[in-house]
């Protein structure tokens, strides 16, 4: 039913309906945002990437054939747009086999531990997660999507989605521990 509604919205937007245009953005904004955030972290350029992605979506809407879901299509465009933004803006992003990994900047661990909150530490840990794990986690939490929806959007099996998210969370815990910041203790005090 959702796919049919998406198809109707695409038809409406192609006919110049602003209402359909708005509806498409509202429905899929969280997916695009999660995809961009998974690549760019919490920088200022995430929103720009999302806007550019939707511009590309609407400029290329006539090429959308409906062979994949609209959310999958928008997710891919947003992710590619974010990767392009990251390549232009950040020299510290190194593509490794199609996966973007952020190289941590030089830091003074003790000073950072004192002033950083659990949320900020988590962002750093997220930036160092495996690409697919992070995409799945961002779609789950920022995108507020179910495992089934993530499976459709990323076009991977449901079991793989669960594995990515579960292992991703365990990895996050490990990274937070390695930084000598017990997640439980820190979050409890913040």
């Amino acid at each position, binding site marked *: 039913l959702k796919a049919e509604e998406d198809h109707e919205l695409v038809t409406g937007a192609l006919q110049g309906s602003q209402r359909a245009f708005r509806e498409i953005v509202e429905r899929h904004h969280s997916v695009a945002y999660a995809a961009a955030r998974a690549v760019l972290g919490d920088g200022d350029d995430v*929103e720009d990437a999302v806007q550019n992605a939707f511009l590309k979506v609407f400029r290329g809407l006539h090429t959308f054939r409906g062979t994949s879901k609209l959310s999958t299509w928008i997710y891919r465009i947003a992710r590619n747009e974010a990767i392009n933004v990251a390549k232009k803006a950040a020299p510290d992003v190194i593509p490794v086999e199609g996966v973007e990994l952020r190289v941590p900047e030089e830091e003074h661990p003790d000073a950072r531990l004192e002033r950083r909150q659990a949320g900020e530490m*988590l962002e750093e840990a997220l930036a160092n997660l495996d690409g697919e794990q992070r995409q799945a*986690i961002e779609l*789950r*939490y*920022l995108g507020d999507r179910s495992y089934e929806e993530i499976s459709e959007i990323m076009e991977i099996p449901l079991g793989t989605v669960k594995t990515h998210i579960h292992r991703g969370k365990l990895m996050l815990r490990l990274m937070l*521990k390695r930084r000598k910041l017990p997640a*439980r203790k820190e979050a409890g005090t913040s």
Partner: protein
Amino acid sequence: MKCAEIEQLIPAWLEKDLPPEEQAMVSLHLERCARCGDVAADLAVIETVLEMRRAAVPPASRTVAALLGTAGRSRARTILDFAFGGPCLAAWTMLALGVILFVFRSKTVFLFSPKLGLFERLSFLSERLVQGIVHVSGGDAWILAAVYGGLTLLMVLVSAWTVMSLARARQ
């Protein structure tokens, strides 16, 4: 089952996504193993912090507003086009002419009399306007027909223009 194996199951256990037997087995293990209990507690906190990040997601309306900025301006332009462009410009000109004729040729004092009702005011106004047109035409039937025909055509055009503009603005 060893702690390392249990640890891998804890994220699914927190989501109650394990088969009942495994769910019970992990629960039992966590009651006895402080180390795995810590893992579960840490993961619960991470889950909460991850969920809290959702509040920081900007509203879709901001993206819509940014993307429709151009379209929004064109809607305003549509209204301006409607008010001052095409057939409406001619209508405004005709109205201005009518007002000028009325001001110069009618007894304006009578129109503003407090004793007059709205209907009387309107009928007086239209009567004076017709008289004004008759005066301009000099009573020539052809000029009168051209003026009234032109006005009718203008009204049809303005109506069509209005309907089209409203339909465009609603989209």
